[in-house]
Structure formats: C-alpha cells, structure tokens
C-alpha cells in the first residue's frame, strides 16, 4: 500500500468519526468540532486524489489542491457563522442546547 | 541523511504523542495547555526535520506560520482561562 492510499484510508475513517460525533454529541459546540473533523477527512480524500495525479513535474495535481484551499476557507466561514448562531441562542435563552422541549 | 532526519522527525512526533497523554489525563487546564504547547513545539520541530528530509524548502513557511499561530492560540488560551476564572468559577 502506498502512502497516499494510507492517508486516504485515514481520511475515510475521519469522515466516519466526525459523522458519529455530529450525530451523537448533544452539545452544539461539539457538533461544530465534529463537523470540522468531517471536513478534514474530506479534504484529505481530495489530497490523495491530488497526490495520485502528480505529473508534469508537479508533486500533485494543483486543481484539487486549489479546491481544498477554497474549501478550508469556506469551512472556516461556516464555522464562524455556526458559532455566532450558537452564542446568540445562548444569550437569548441562557442555554446552549438543541432540544426543543423543556 | 534524509532517512536520519525522517527518523528524527518520527521520534520527536512519538515523544509529543506521549505528551498528549497529559491532555487526556488533565487534571487542570494548565496541564492541557502545557501539553498543547509541547505538541506545538514538537510539531514544528518535526515539520522542520521533514522539510529538510524531503527537500521542500518552501515548506519552512508552514513552520513559520505554525509558530506565529501557536503564539496566537496560546494567548487565546490564556485569555480564555483568565476570563473563566473571572466569571467566578
């Protein structure tokens, strides 16, 4: 097995782990962290595709690499928005929970 | 030479990974910050060794950014810890 494949498998496991955290954790902040783990895994899969496409003297295919850079910045913007929504919820209700009842 | 540097990078990473056990055990936030600090320094050291082993000199900038941002995150840590205590914990 080559190293890119190894990191690809690592990315696949990361997506599963993050998804698990996203479903199971009741605290919204933990869900945000878990969502970022999923993101890390997906980006790693892109990285493997990029590394395998090494050609023409480049260490990797620059197109998926550029997509990952775009993705990282957008993921950050989404995280910041999610955190702001969460803090607003906390200031409105004094609690930070997604439960609709009590 | 490249093999030696790669091995050294692996060794340093393994060491800081052990240091991570301190994050697991805590008990206080101070210990967690210390372990994160060790991980930051070790990560930077491993990265520098890696850069030289793989001869990608441009990646030294990654270490430079990590060093800057590690300082930034540390200050956020300390600020956060100070604020939580001020809240009357």
């Amino acid at each position, binding site marked *: 097995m080559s190293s890119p494949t190894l990191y690809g498998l690592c990315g696949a496991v990361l997506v599963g782990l993050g998804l698990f955290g996203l479903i199971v954790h009741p605290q919204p902040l933990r869900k945000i962290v878990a969502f970022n783990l999923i993101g890390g895994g997906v980006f790693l899969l892109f990285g493997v595709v990029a590394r395998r496409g090494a050609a023409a003297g480049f260490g990797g295919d620059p197109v998926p690499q550029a997509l990952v850079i775009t993705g990282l910045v957008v993921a950050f913007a989404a995280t910041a928005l999610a955190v702001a929504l969460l803090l607003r919820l906390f200031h409105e209700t004094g609690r930070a929970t997604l439960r609709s009842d009590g | *030479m490249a093999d*030696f*540097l790669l091995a*050294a990078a692996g*060794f*340093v990473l393994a*060491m*800081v990974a*052990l*240091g991570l*056990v*301190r994050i697991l055990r805590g008990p*206080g936030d*101070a*210990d967690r*910050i*210390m*372990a994160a*600090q*060790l991980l*930051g*320094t*070790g990560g*930077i*050291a491993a990265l*520098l*060794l890696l850069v*030289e082993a793989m001869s990608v*000199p441009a990646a*030294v*900038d990654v*270490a*430079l950014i990590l*060093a*800057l941002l*590690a*300082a930034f995150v*540390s*200050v956020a*840590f*300390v600020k956060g*810890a*100070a604020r939580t*205590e001020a809240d009357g914990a």
Partner: protein
Amino acid sequence: MSLGLDVLTILAVCAGAFFFLAGTVGLLRFPDALCRLHALTKADNLGLGLIVLGLLFQVEGPFAALKLISVWLLTLLAGATVTQLIARTARPGGTPE
C-alpha cells in the same frame, strides 16, 4: 566538508531529540504543575533550538537560515509568554495576568 557538517547535524538533532524525550518524561512523571512546567520549557527551548541548530548546517543561503532562526525565536516568545502565565495561575494564590 559535507561529511563534517552532516556529523554536526546528526549530533545536534540527536541532542534536540533527547530534550524532547526528557520533556515528555517530565511532563508525564513530575508531581506538580510547576515541575512539569520546568520540564516542558527544557523541551521547548533546547529541544527545538538544538534541532534548528542542526538543520542550520544543512540549509543553503542566509535567508533560509534566517527563517529557521525566526521560527525558533517565535516559539521561544510564545513559550516564554505562556509558561509565565501558566506559572502565575498554577502558583497557590497567584492571579492570572
């Protein structure tokens, strides 16, 4: 000449790696926060410092060397700041900042 430099690199990097080992052991084994802090700063300053020193023998050109040294200085600054503040919080009766 190159062989001599390689030997210097290996020596310095090994010494640096040793300080990381020592720092980790200290972090895990020392009884209280201040002792652990002492162990940590050794790993931080000397471990990274020696590794940077070792790598300096390998790089080409003053600019690359300058970058390596700045990485070390930045880490020192961050480490000094944070350890100072941790020490204040960890000391009995100490106040943060």
